[in-house]
């Protein structure tokens, strides 16, 4: 029964194998969306299990922790699994209509599910080295996806993406080595158990800083984010949306996992550092977004700006703040992916991503305008859509804990976000079509299948806002579990006692 925990990894794996054997594009059209639909159901079921038991753990191959690899799902993992499965499903549907002819669907879905497998593996694993391996699985798939079109720009963006992410992986591996050298274990729960009552635990800082840099590169925080805006606008919009929704958020997830579970010795220093980094990430990302006029670039800088909020929640480090960070991550994954999907639609309808070249879309396609306004309002934090509650929780936690500076920065960055969203709205939807080469082109009507993904994500964003009470309940559970990981440790190390 409990072995269902391995399924989030096994299902994508089986899908990859079947795609490799079948090799047919026609069948891939069905395998892709249906396989991702299956993942949604599966992660929903896992979430129900977590609600029932609190934390569930599976010892792989029957080796008791800390000797074997443990798969663990707690509230945080379960919530991330559910949200990422929803995004994976909507992108799988979106890919059917938006991938260019040159990219074979079958090939795309092989690496798409490769990324999914790495992602799910990273969410469920309870072992540091195993996490590294899942990161690499995810990275390899993303390397292939980002260069799939093989144009000059994509290869150039690919080189930049690859260079910094590989360096990040090396930091990660070096951190794993030092961690093992000091503690003799790589099981996360066992690490937490060992470091809890150790008077030399302050020595862990040297390892922690290596992980900090590694996860900082993955999550694109302030001084380490330059690979993101240099590469995210190059691949096909389907692939950009996939990356925007999922990749950086795994970095945030590992940040939250590591710095709540076992790197909790030198709290003063780490939380101060996290808050400073968070503040700079928010401001620099938001300012850079304000300077650009290409939708994908604006939205790429936006990803960075919003990562700051998630790190801010971790830096404040109260159950409410962690709950806020998780709520924000969930809301942001949905809304961010959705804005990218809409920018892909604008491109399909008008043939460009440049805001200066388009206009008057609100009249031509009111549905597209509505679809844009939902995630844009969500990101800007206007009630009753999800983003308002996410920001509200974070700001409330900041004020309660006395972190006034970061709270003020967060509020001001909200203005910047609103500004860039209004900019896209005004330029693309409200202003009249400028007189240029695109003016003569007819508006390309989109079909329902092309609207579906965005409608789906928008509906979930709104539902998340309306039922914020329940969602907040779940994230609060997650926050409490993370601040006091006794249940996590006991569930994993049952055999050791």
């Amino acid at each position, binding site marked *: 029964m409990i072995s269902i925990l391995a399924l989030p990894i096994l299902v994508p794996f089986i899908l990859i194998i079947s795609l490799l054997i079948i090799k047919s594009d026609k069948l891939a059209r069905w395998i892709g969306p249906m396989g991702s639909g299956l993942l949604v159901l599966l992660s929903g079921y896992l979430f129900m299990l977590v609600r029932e038991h609190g934390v569930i753990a599976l010892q792989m191959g029957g080796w008791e922790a800390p000797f074997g690899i443990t798969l663990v799902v707690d509230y945080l993992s379960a919530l991330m699994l559910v949200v990422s499965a929803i995004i994976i499903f909507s992108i799988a549907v979106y890919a059917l209509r938006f991938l260019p002819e040159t990219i074979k669907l079958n090939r795309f879905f092989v690496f798409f599910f490769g990324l999914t497998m790495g992602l799910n593996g990273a969410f469920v694993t309870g072992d540091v080295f195993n996490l590294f391996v899942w990161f690499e699985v995810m990275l390899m798939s993303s390397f292939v996806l980002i260069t799939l079109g093989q144009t000059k720009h994509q290869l*150039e963006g690919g080189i930049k993406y690859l260079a910094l992410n590989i360096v990040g992986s090396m930091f990660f591996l070096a951190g794993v*080595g030092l961690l093992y050298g000091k503690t003799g274990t790589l099981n996360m729960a066992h690490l937490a158990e060992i470091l809890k009552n150790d008077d030399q635990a302050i020595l862990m800082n040297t390892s922690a800083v290596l992980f900090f840099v590694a996860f900082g590169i993955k999550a694109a925080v302030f001084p380490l984010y330059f690979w993101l805006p240099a590469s995210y606008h190059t691949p096909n919009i389907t692939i950009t949306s996939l990356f925007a929704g999922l990749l950086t958020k795994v970095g945030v997830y590992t940040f939250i996992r590591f710095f709540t579970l076992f790197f909790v010795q030198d709290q003063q220093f780490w939380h101060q550092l996290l808050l400073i980094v968070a503040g700079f990430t928010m401001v620099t990302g938001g300012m850079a977004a304000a300077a650009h006029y290409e939708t994908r670039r604006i939205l790429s800088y936006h990803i960075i700006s919003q990562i700051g909020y998630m790190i801010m929640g971790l830096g404040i480090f109260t159950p409410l703040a962690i709950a806020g960070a998780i709520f924000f991550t969930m809301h942001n994954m949905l809304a961010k992916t959705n804005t990218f999907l809409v920018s892909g639609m604008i491109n399909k309808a008008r043939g460009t991503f440049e805001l200066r070249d388009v206009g008057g879309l609100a009249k031509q396609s009111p549905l597209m305008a509505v679809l844009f306004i939902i995630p844009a309002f969500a990101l800007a934090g206007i009630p009753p859509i999800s983003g308002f509650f996410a920001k509200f929780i974070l700001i409330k936690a900041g004020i309660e804990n006395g972190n006034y500076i970061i709270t003020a920065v967060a509020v001001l960055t909200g203005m910047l976000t609103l500004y860039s969203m209004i900019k896209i709205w005004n330029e693309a939807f409200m202003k009249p079509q400028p007189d240029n080469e695109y003016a003569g082109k007819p508006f390309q009507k989109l079909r329902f299948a092309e609207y579906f993904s965005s409608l789906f994500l928008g509906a979930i964003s709104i539902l998340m806002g309306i039922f914020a009470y329940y969602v907040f309940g779940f994230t609060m559970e997650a926050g409490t579990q993370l601040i006091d990981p006794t249940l996590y440790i006991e569930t994993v190390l049952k055999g050791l006692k």
Partner: protein
Amino acid sequence: MEIILAIVVGVLYTAGVYLMLRRSILKFIIGLIFMSNATNLLVFLSAGLVPGSPAFVKSEGTGAGVMADPLPQALVLTAIVIGLGIVVFTLALKYKFFELTGTDDLDQLKKTDD
């Protein structure tokens, strides 16, 4: 023995960083190989070296202090394979990029910034 290997790790990291900061993409890839080998050695060293005895337990039992810890060796084995895959992909990417643009100069890669 450990001190020598520690120096080797340091030298490899230095050489790797130096090569990575050069303008040629090929040198960047060589730097990548150096750094990934340095990291592998670092992980290998993390358990401490026990010269002259393999990571096997004798039938009468062996104390933990006298045998080498096999876990980091297993980790390094995995890391080497992953590193190989990454280097091969990077080389293929570099080849494709060179075919399209005819340049090996990292300073020419400015089109996706700003």
